[in-house]
């Protein structure tokens, strides 16, 4: 049985042989591009580029509209096309698409990578592209052979006709491109999939391993200069004046210019720019950030957590908790976090007066293109934004303020030579746009039988969204949904759950960080649930299962992790297990962590993860993403924290902003739930939230101590 995709009503299709003499398919969903329009994206007709090219030699190139920064879209998205196209997988390659309206997210109208949405967003779109192209290739062959298309089929890059007729896709591409694109195509039933669901190695391994991939930092252009920018040493400070006298004598330095955030030194190479920046004498006007400290914020947030505020969820009976037989009150704290992708931020700009080209690893092409244009006094259509593969990002390259892109454009416009801005690791760690610091205060009541009767939950932390173009969509009645996700929409059946949110402002800039709000809400929810299980005298797994009776998908995932981990079986002396489960980005991940203490340090030996991410496109990538998300979450669970004193960020590089090293990586076992779902849900983020609470709960089982702040490494466990 086949399902039918009917894209005709909203779909504009165009086939043209304009590029590389092959088949080019452009596919566009107009009418849902509100944000792109609002930000000044051009309404120009669709340009002659597309999602798919088939060259005469049979090479199939899939244009990937998302950023590739480790999550594997340059393999998963071509798999969607190839499944329907029936091409030869070994002839498929991927190319990152530049900023262009037809590459917008199908629902959000802007080109972006985030929210673990890439595969889901392209699920129907790219399979349809593949099916359309296949239909056109078959039609071209049928016309050539003067037979009916129904008498032909496509297989491994060839169209096969009656009487042993056979023609390669490459030989048919030019003729196929001249045919009208079919408006209706039938898409395969998942049972017919040959490629989707099969473990498939990445298409880009060899070029990455041999260092042939050109990341943003590797961009070479004629006459390219390097710029380093001195950013404020105190949060929110501004340049009062600067003296570049000592800079000008440094060989290789060509320009010193002020930007809206700091002072840039432009030079013929990185080292000259670095020396030049070190020699700059800048007087900063500190502003209100001068007295800021994490300690002060903690006290302020803890006080706010006891105050009434905007409510994300109201209790049916706010007084129910007063009748509780037992009440548990706990206050939690998580720090600011930097993203610290391995490739430091960078952006290359060639400004040509009436147009410009920008090269960067952008998660937000539409936003960055518009911001670049504005910074250079151009319209977005005059700015070509090349999406470069990025060495990680984790949200940092999806900044509504486009900070590092705007800065590069300001410099390029000012100095009128091609410029690449390079952030040092210190610039990155101290450069703001952190996952916000949060304080949670939870008061939960149990009745005499150990059942929850009420739960008052206050969350205090800066809003990521306030003041950005996303505010109208994501902030409702004072509630930034990204601050409370994972609490106000918890699957646990908690009677009389009340969620209050305070979103204080500060000069510290904040941003989403892999798994966004879930990065802190899962820690609080899952350690509190564990604490209540202990208070009720129940097994943590059994206690959770009772509260999840209405969510069989969550229970199934939890059960799978518990079973595979040997939940309830004996462990060697000095080891303990902890369990956590969390739903995010449409997926559910449960984890069981096995820990011990070695010389007082937390050691995580083994993590068993169960993951329901809907229909699995590439199990090999799913496993990698779960392993990676756990490593990323463990960095923050055990080590990472950005702290501020006298307005200054106290960390600077990987020695004091610690992240997980290979020797600390636990054995990770990933078990994918076979749910029979008919579409994919999020993969990149949902395995990050459960690891911190799973480890914290294991530490409780081991020591009897409850961790209520992260990183866990700062608690004395001995």
């Amino acid at each position, binding site marked *: 049985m086949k399902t039918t995709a009917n894209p005709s009503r909203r779909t504009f299709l165009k086939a043209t042989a304009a590029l590389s003499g092959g088949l080019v398919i452009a596919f566009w969903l107009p009418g849902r591009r509100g944000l792109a329009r609002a930000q000044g994206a051009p309404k120009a007709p669709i340009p002659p580029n597309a999602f798919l090219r088939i060259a005469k030699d049979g090479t199939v190139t899939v244009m990937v509209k998302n950023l590739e920064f480790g999550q594997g879209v340059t393999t998963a998205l071509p798999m969607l096309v190839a499944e329907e196209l029936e091409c030869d997988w070994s002839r498929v390659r991927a190319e990152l698409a530049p900023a262009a309206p037809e590459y917008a997210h199908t629902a959000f109208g802007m080109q972006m990578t985030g929210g673990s949405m890439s595969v889901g967003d392209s699920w129907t779109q790219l399979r349809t592209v593949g099916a359309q192209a296949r239909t056109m290739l078959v039609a071209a062959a049928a016309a050539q052979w003067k037979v009916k298309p129904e008498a032909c089929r496509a297989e491994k890059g060839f169209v096969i006709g009656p009487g042993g007729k056979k023609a390669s896709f490459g030989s048919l591409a030019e003729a196929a491109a001249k045919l009208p694109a079919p408006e209706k195509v039938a898409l395969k039933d998942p049972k017919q999939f040959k490629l989707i669901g099969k473990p498939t190695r990445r298409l880009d391994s060899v070029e990455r391993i041999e260092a042939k991939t050109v990341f943003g930092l590797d961009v070479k252009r004629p006459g390219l200069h390097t710029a380093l920018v001195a950013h404020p040493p105190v949060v929110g400070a501004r340049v009062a004046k600067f003296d570049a006298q000592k800079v000008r004598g440094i060989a290789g330095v060509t320009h010193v210019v002020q930007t809206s955030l700091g002072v840039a030194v432009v030079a013929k190479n990185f080292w000259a720019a670095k020396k030049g920046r070190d020699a700059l004498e800048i007087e900063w006007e500190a502003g209100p950030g001068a007295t800021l400290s994490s300690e002060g914020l903690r006290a302020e947030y803890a006080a706010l957590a006891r105050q009434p505020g905007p409510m994300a969820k109201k209790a049916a009976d706010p007084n129910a908790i007063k009748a509780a037989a037992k009440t548990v009150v706990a206050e939690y704290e998580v720090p600011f976090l930097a993203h610290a992708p391995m490739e430091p931020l960078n952006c290359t700009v060639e400004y040509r007066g009436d147009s410009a080209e920008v090269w960067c690893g952008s998660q937000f092409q539409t936003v960055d293109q518009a911001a670049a244009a504005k910074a250079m006094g151009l319209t977005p259509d005059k700015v070509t934004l090349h999406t470069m593969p990025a*060495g990680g990002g984790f949200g940092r390259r999806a900044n509504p303020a486009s900070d590092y892109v705007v800065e590069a454009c300001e410099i390029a416009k000012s100095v009128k030579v091609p410029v690449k801005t390079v952030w040092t690791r210190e610039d990155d760690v101290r450069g703001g746009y952190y996952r916000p610091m949060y304080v949670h205060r939870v008061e939960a009541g149990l009745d005499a039988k150990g059942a929850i009767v009420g739960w008052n939950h206050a969350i205090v932390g800066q809003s990521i969204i306030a003041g950005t173009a996303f505010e109208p969509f994501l902030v409702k009645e004072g509630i930034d949904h990204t601050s409370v996700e994972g609490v106000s929409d918890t699957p646990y059946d908690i009677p009389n759950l009340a969620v209050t949110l305070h979103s204080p402002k500060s000069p510290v800039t904040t941003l989403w960080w892999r798994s966004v709000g879930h990065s802190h809400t899962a820690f609080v929810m899952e350690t509190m649930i564990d604490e209540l299980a202990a208070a009720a005298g129940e097994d943590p797994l059994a206690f959770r299962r009772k509260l999840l009776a209405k969510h069989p998908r969550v229970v199934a995932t939890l059960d799978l992790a518990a079973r595979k981990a040997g939940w309830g079986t004996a462990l060697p002396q000095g080891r303990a297990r902890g369990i956590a489960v969390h739903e995010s980005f449409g997926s559910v991940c449960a984890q069981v962590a096995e820990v011990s203490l070695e010389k007082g340090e937390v050691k995580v030996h083994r993590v068993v993860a169960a993951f329901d991410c809907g229909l699995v496109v590439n199990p090999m990538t799913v496993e990698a993403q779960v392993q990676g998300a756990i490593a990323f979450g463990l960095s923050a669970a055990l080590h990472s924290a950005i702290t501020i004193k006298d307005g200054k960020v106290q960390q600077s590089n990987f020695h004091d902003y610690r992240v997980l090293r290979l020797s600390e*990586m636990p054995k990770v076992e990933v078990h994918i739930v076979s749910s029979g779902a008919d579409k994919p849900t999020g993969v990149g983020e949902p395995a990050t939230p459960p690891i911190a609470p799973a480890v914290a709960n294991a530490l409780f089982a081991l020591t009897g101590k409850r961790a209520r702040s992260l990183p866990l490494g700062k608690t004395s466990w001995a």
Partner: protein
Amino acid sequence: MTKFYVNGEPVEFRAAPDTPLLWALRDHLGLTGTKFGCGLSQCGACTVHVNGEPALACSIPVSDLQGKRVTTIEGLPANAVVKAVKGAWVDKDVVQCGYCQPGQVMAAVALLTKNKSPSDAEIDAAMDGNLCRCGTYPRIREAVKTAAAKLAGKR
């Protein structure tokens, strides 16, 4: 001026002698396979071989390299160890973003050149200086073991 060798070719470096090898490679020689990650010997993204030993290019001034032989990811010979490492990296599908992987490969090649059958602890110790924010660590461990097995003829 400092004279040294990069991937077998003689180099006469005339720019600032305190220039770190990393930036001499990237900015002056156009070899961008050696990556910048921290500039402080913390992350291993810039791992190269100097006279056959793994070294961090971000922290070696060119002036220290007089007469020395530098090998970068671009200049790795196609010998058995290199083939085994690259093959295992593809087989185990190690790569995520790939930015740290040239450095990881350089570290793994240096390890297996000296020690054909490293223990788990030796692998952890040899690879511990190379950070990966994507978290490819489990597959790096597997790939090093796979390469070692291949070199031992066990497959």
